[in-house]
């Protein structure tokens, strides 16, 4: 007989019987919630979820650095059968079947079992890690779904809460559950902070760590245990599908901002906590919005912003750096050209011709002129010509000399056919340091190789 299972796209089911409107809460309500004054329950939930986000962000850094992020996915999906089994087990033995500790123990057991299965598959078959994780993930989860449907059919009243483990139900958690979640999170945070350098050395270079006497296997196990703890703690709030993202997104986002491990852990924790806080708040204000999704989307927004806006490692920063390097190189070429034409001004036509030969777009030309003028290499511009300053000529001379030096060097030292010289020099001449230039000069002079004399006051 067909089971009562919700249907994906189906118009006019029960909900439409009552008017469902997307109603916004009042401003006062919003402020109260944000500042933890909207009631004991709500405050606890928001605080607890923020704490969870903090823990996930912190331990997630090490899962990421150890390259085990997807294992967390398998772990979280593998918790479902454990939850259903714990529920049934508790029911049979007369325990309160939806008591969170019982369910979480069940979740941990099958979660760990899942991880062990991944290792077994890797060890005994020729299947690779991606396949092993996918297998465990789907099969265990399928078993969980079977369990859920069994419970639904045979004890329908009780099972409502269990479904929430899939998508999370932060806003409707009980205080006792929140306290449990928060305590687990706290333990995970403290443990990670305590063992940070041990985790770091194992994640960075486990061979060295082993030689130095560290029990790498144990440390790995401990890290995994903390991941399990945080994952299981987050199941109720965020749901098992999305809990993995709390462990992955904050560290990846934080990585854009810093190159130091301790700062990375801090920022990742903050991002996680913020996402938890915001998600739970939104979930409290809009009860129908699934909390897990909001939390993840918050983290996702922070991630996107980080990826684009972070200085040094962000996308924009990269692009700007690339363009400025190209502008500098092009500017040097221009100055060199001017120097070699033995003039101190450049007619607009000359410039246009040169630009066309180099393939510079008009925008690029503007950038070059702007950059050079900023560095005082170019003087004022009249309608038909561009004046090059003293400094500009000097720079041009220097670039020209470096060019000649490198050409000579490459031909006489590296056996590169003269026809290749232009390409190599172009790449390289702009990164020559002063010391290296001096070295080259001396070497070439000692060998009696002919090259242009240094200019006064240059080199």
């Amino acid at each position, binding site marked *: *007989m*067909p*089971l009562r*299972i*919700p*249907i*994906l*796209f189906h*118009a*006019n089911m029960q*909900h*439409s019987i009552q008017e*469902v*409107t*997307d109603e916004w809460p009042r401003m006062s309500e919003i402020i109260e919630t944000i500042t933890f004054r909207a009631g004991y329950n709500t405050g606890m939930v928001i605080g607890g979820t923020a704490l969870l986000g903090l823990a996930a962000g912190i331990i997630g850094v090490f899962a*990421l650095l150890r*390259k085990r*992020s*997807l294992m967390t996915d398998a772990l979280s999906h593998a918790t479902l059968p454990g939850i259903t089994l714990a529920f049934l087990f508790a029911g049979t033995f007369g325990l309160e079947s939806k008591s969170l500790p019982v369910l979480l123990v069940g979740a941990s057991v099958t979660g760990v079992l899942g991880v062990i299965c991944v290792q077994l598959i890797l060890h*005994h*078959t*020729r*299947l690779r890690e*991606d*396949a092993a*994780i*996918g*297998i465990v*993930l*789907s*099969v*265990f989860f*399928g*078993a969980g*779904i*079977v369990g*859920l*449907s*069994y419970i639904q059919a*045979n004890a329908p009243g009780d099972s409502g809460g269990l479904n929430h483990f*899939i*998508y999370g139900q932060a806003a409707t958690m009980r205080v006792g559950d929140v306290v449990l979640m928060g305590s687990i999170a706290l333990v995970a945070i403290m443990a990670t902070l305590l063992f940070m350098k041990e985790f770091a050395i194992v994640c960075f270079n486990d061979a060295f760590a082993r030689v130095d006497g560290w029990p790498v296997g144990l440390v790995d196990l401990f890290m995994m245990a903390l991941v399990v703890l945080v994952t299981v703690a987050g199941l109720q709030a965020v749901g098992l*599908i999305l809990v993995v*993202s709390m462990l*992955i*997104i904050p560290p*990846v986002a934080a990585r*854009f901002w810093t190159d130091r491990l301790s700062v990375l852990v801090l920022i990742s924790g903050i991002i996680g906590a913020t996402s938890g806080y915001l998600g739970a708040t939104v979930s409290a204000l809009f009860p129908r919005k*699934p909390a*897990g*999704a*909001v939390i*993840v*989307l918050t*983290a*996702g927004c922070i*991630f996107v912003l980080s*990826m684009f806006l972070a200085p040094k490692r*962000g*996308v924009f920063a990269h692009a700007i750096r690339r363009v400025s390097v190209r502008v500098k190189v092009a500017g040097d070429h221009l100055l060199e050209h001017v120097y070699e034409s033995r003039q101190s001004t450049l007619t607009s036509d000359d410039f246009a011709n040169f630009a066309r030969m180099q393939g510079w777009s008009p925008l690029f030309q503007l950038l070059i002129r702007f950059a050079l003028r900023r560095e005082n290499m170019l003087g004022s511009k009249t309608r038909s010509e561009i004046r090059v300053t003293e400094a500009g000529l000097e720079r041009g001379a220097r670039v020209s000399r470096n060019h000649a030096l490198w050409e000579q060097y490459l031909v006489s030292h590296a056996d590169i056919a003269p026809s290749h010289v232009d390409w190599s020099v172009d790449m390289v001449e702009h990164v020559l340091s002063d010391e290296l230039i001096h070295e080259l000069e001396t070497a070439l002079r000692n060998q009696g190789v002919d090259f242009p004399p240094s200019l006064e006051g240059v080199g």
Partner: protein
Amino acid sequence: MYFDLALDLFPLLAAALAAVCCGLLGNFLLLRKQSMMGDAISHSVLPGLVIAFLIASTRSPLVMLAGATIAGVVTVVLVEFVKRFGKVEPGAAMGVVFSILFALGVLLIEKAAVRHVDLDAECVLHGQLETLVWYSAPATISGLWSVETLDAIPRQIITLTIILILAIGFVSLLFKELRLASFDPALATTLGFNSTLLHYLLMIFVAAATVASFEAVGSILVIAMLICPGATARLLTDRLRTQIVLSVLIALFTAVGGYFSATIIPGWFGRDTVNAAGSITVFSGLVLSLTIIISPSHGILSRMIRRIRLSSRVALDDLLATMYRAQEQAQAEMSASDISDAILRSKPQPLLNRAVKRALIQRHRGMYSLTEKGQRAARSIVRRHRLWEHYLVDQAGLAPDHVHETAERLEHLPPVPPAGPQTDPQGKVIPDDPQVP
């Protein structure tokens, strides 16, 4: 009584079609070590579906498919982007992208629900096979052959069939290219096949298969079917064509088997049926586990058996060699305890019995000696041992007092050093090859 046309025909068909379609495509994901990409896509098509629905306000399959395809492509692009700029491993990049997209989808479903259309995110996971009930099914199988049947076929099955046919076409036509691009994308590109294009095409098909299967069997089954049949087949054969055919058969088998398990097994305990999609997933996991253990070529059991056989052959070889050496020292017969000391085994009896049974040694008044057959076998082993010792000292320059142990390791397997030397480093005679008259 286990198969009711009304209740089971269409769900079974849907499950089978979904399984076969995903199983087929999954082989290539497996090859390219991108199985998790299948997981990612099956999660991230959700927002594509919902957005398409919100925009077009229709559930038409074409619209859904378009939405899914776009979502699939977007996923792939985003994952590459994050990999490059985030400088993270592919797994983390996938995790970031698919979870954000999935969360977006879940949120959008809620939003769409406000418009009086009830969408349910849970169904995304485990499908709704059970609702493909055919209310006006004929009473018997023979009643199937009529026009009403065609009319009654649910939309999902038609979509699935079309996608399956297209997928079969894709795989058959581009088999060589897919295979090459999976092994060596760079080479494929230099040979003129655009591997990136193939990559995207494959992902688009995966997305389409996911979406077509979604409504029927849910995303969890999709992930399982993308990986398990292919993985199982991989453990049974080394040839790609065979693997593909096998994976399709296995997919079909697990779909049918899993479906019926969902009804039959709970029935044994007097309970209601459980979720069919979940059951199929578990079934495919069991099939895989079984294969891991008993696969003739790669299974654990067969490897163990092979090792045990080798182990016992090695023991036998050792015994014969020991007795031969004793014979050289003019000890033609040995007692069981002599043998036990020599080969360092406290309980040599089972080994001795085995050797007697194979007519390699004989027992006479409590003492053992080599038979004709045993002599030949022993000479062969000792010959190999000493040739190796000679080789190791002569060619490899190892110290003569060490080579005995290394030669012990080498004497049991081919290859054999070439004939020629007459004595080993200790001066003992190297027996002639017993095969050569």
